């Protein structure tokens, strides 16, 4: 057993760090340094910088424009990017529809879509959930009627995060209304500029308009935009859930937030002494730090397994569960340390120290972490059944 990186891997890590240090524009760096919030424009600016370096999609194979990094280097790159406080790239193209198009799309589709995902020229959003369906993704009611050379879409998608900025949406649509639940669903790509598409952003408790409702009224989608077999979309949906799970350990983000917590504890005083000197506060921070280290080890184990080519095992099933609870816990810790400053809400700079500014919105918004990508309750149902073999 070996927990350390090889000298070559360590050299790669240094290279990444150094590159980030120099490549990040001062305006972005200023935000990153105080753990500020990045708008979509800033995120896409960073996307393009990473693209030019060839690192925008560490997990993409070289064939499709990925950097051809091995598992460990992908991990190192991802962790360093998260730790740097750089904008987190939008996952909808790079991590969701991109890999599905690689796996299930035809060559024309791969040539048409993948390069523009990589370059950032086209932004994507996800059309999975529907109103009142929750984590029950198979409850698809949006219909795609066969109209010869195209489908006609009617229905509604919900939780279409950042649809207001998206050029394209990938979605599950019911192409066979007579079939049973999971059957009769197809996976389609739809241009957001199509006539009949309407987006209504939803204000979240994080104070931003992250989610949208997206409405489809007689929207025409050419048949070449069908990915995978007709009525066979459920296979793609399941594959995507698998991809999603590996995204959510968020070790780097949690580590970054822990640093923020320590910074708050240092800069906040009580009775003239920093909170960081208070044994109760220290124990609280240390408890979260231990939890994060445990998550890191679970992540390393999953990573090492993947490196050896093993199928994802028991250790990876807990990443979403623990990762989501830990990132929530980290922000909760920050909020608690802020004391009365926790009241602040999107005020002008200077009302509270800059690194306290986005704690509240992030804490609030991240209540979603245990809900999206299959709620933690659903994750537990799956583990109970598939791993523990408990009866249903």
């Amino acid at each position: 057993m070996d927990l350390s990186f090889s000298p070559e891997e360590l050299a790669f890590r240094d290279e990444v760090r150094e590159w980030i240090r120099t490549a990040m524009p001062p305006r972005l760096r200023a935000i990153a340094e105080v753990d500020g919030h990045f708008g979509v424009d800033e995120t896409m600016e960073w996307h393009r910088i990473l693209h030019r370096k060839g690192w925008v999609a560490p997990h993409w194979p070289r064939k499709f424009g990925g950097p051809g990094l091995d598992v460990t280097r992908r991990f190192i790159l991802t962790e360093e990017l998260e730790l740097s406080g750089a904008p987190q790239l939008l996952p909808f193209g790079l991590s969701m529809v991109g890999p599905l198009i690689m796996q299930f799309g035809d060559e024309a589709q791969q040539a048409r879509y993948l390069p523009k995902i990589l370059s950032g020229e086209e932004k994507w959003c996800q059309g999975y959930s529907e109103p009142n369906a929750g984590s029950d993704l198979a409850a698809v009611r949006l219909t795609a009627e066969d109209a010869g050379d195209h489908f006609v879409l009617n229905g509604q998608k919900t939780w279409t995060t950042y649809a207001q900025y998206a050029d394209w949406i990938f979605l599950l649509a019911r192409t066979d209304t007579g079939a049973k639940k999971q059957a009769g669903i197809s996976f389609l790509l739809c241009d957001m500029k199509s006539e009949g598409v309407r987006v209504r952003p939803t204000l979240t408790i994080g104070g931003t308009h992250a989610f949208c409702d997206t409405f489809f009224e007689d929207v025409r989608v050419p048949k070449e935009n069908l990915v995978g077999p007709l009525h066979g979309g459920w296979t793609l949906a399941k594959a995507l859930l698998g991809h999603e799970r590996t995204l959510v350990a968020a070790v780097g983000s949690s580590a970054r937030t822990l640093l923020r917590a320590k910074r708050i504890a240092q800069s906040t005083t009580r009775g003239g002494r920093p909170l960081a000197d208070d044994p109760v506060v220290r124990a609280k921070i240390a408890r979260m730090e231990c939890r994060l280290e445990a998550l890191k080890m679970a992540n390393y184990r999953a990573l090492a397994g993947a490196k050896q080519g093993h199928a994802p095992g028991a250790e990876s099933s807990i990443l979403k569960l623990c990762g989501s609870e830990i990132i929530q816990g980290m922000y909760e810790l920050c909020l608690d340390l802020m004391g009365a400053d926790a009241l602040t809400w999107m005020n002008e700079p200077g009302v509270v120290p800059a690194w306290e500014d986005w704690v509240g919105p992030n804490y609030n918004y991240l209540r979603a972490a245990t809900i999206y990508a299959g709620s933690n309750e659903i994750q537990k149902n799956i583990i109970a059944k598939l791993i523990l073999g408990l009866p249903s």
Partner: protein
Amino acid sequence: MNFDLTDDQRLLVDTVTSFVKKESPVERFRKLRDDEEGVGWSRDVMRKFGELGWLAVPFSEDDGGLGGSMVDVALILEQLGAALAPEPFLASIVLGGLAIAHAGDAAQRARWLPDVIAGDKTLAFAHLEEGSRYDAHHVSTRAERTGTGFRLTGRKRWVLNGHAADAIVVVARTSGDVGAREGISLFVVDRGAPGVQITTVRTMDGHRAAMIALDGVEVGAESLLGTEGAALPIVERVLDGATAAACAEGLGLMTQSLQRTRDYLVDREQFGVKIGTFQALQHRAVDMFVETELTRGTTILAALRADDPDPLQRMRGVSVAKVQLARGGRYVVQQAIQLHGGIGITDEADVGLYFKRMHVLESLFGDEDWHLSRVSSPG
């Protein structure tokens, strides 16, 4: 031992409940919150509170009040919390108003309380400072004697209703070092006094508050409330009363969060069945219920003890309640969102509003650690 409401109290609860039901649904709060021009609450509604007598409750009859107890105040605040009514009852009555009532002389009380009780004027209470955390004796704002009164210099943070109040009760130091328990005094400062700089800030719950800078503000001797340098016991009493009131408001938030979650579980279907049939969710809802019932008990404790003449009894009862609110309240609002799923993350669902208000109440008047250290103090 008796926890039954008196007939008067029952009537009070009924009046508040039916008023907010009719005139203050949660939607009213959303509108006030989103109105960038306004102060976040309605002066008309505050006056109605006055007409209904609620603002008079905790004041003595001599001061034009009803001579009610902190229990009566708690009953009102629980219902206002349930409706998310944003009017500054806590800031103007429980903080600023009672500070004047407890510390002021007859002339000072007569100068301010009638208008406050009518809802025509509102008050704020400025105590928090940078680095004070929650210690009432950590005061660096200075009040120096002048020929005719005092000159106040310092900065106050997160002053509830400070952006809208007609006058601000300021905790300032007339002698001693920053952390000394002696030398603390109270002053009533007009919002328009030269040198008073009020910056409106937004708070997580959609309310406004103020950061207040006092740059050599000259006030007359009549602004000093009570004995110079001896105000700390009153400040602590006022803050304990406000803490008990915050617990009551928090209880209202919890009750609503539980109720709405329960209704959601009963209504909502997924995978073809009511989600309320899932045992894991049922047990979660029961845990929410348990915390709410425990908080109901400790809120009574805090309200009863807030009027206790023995400061140790008072602090202990209030701190026990705030600790329970910190634990139970947070659990309930977090789970309310979790059990609502995605819709709980949106501003459309009321549970998110309760969630945010709960976190504000938690961050005010001492967090869990602060109150735990009070409970564990000897004596």
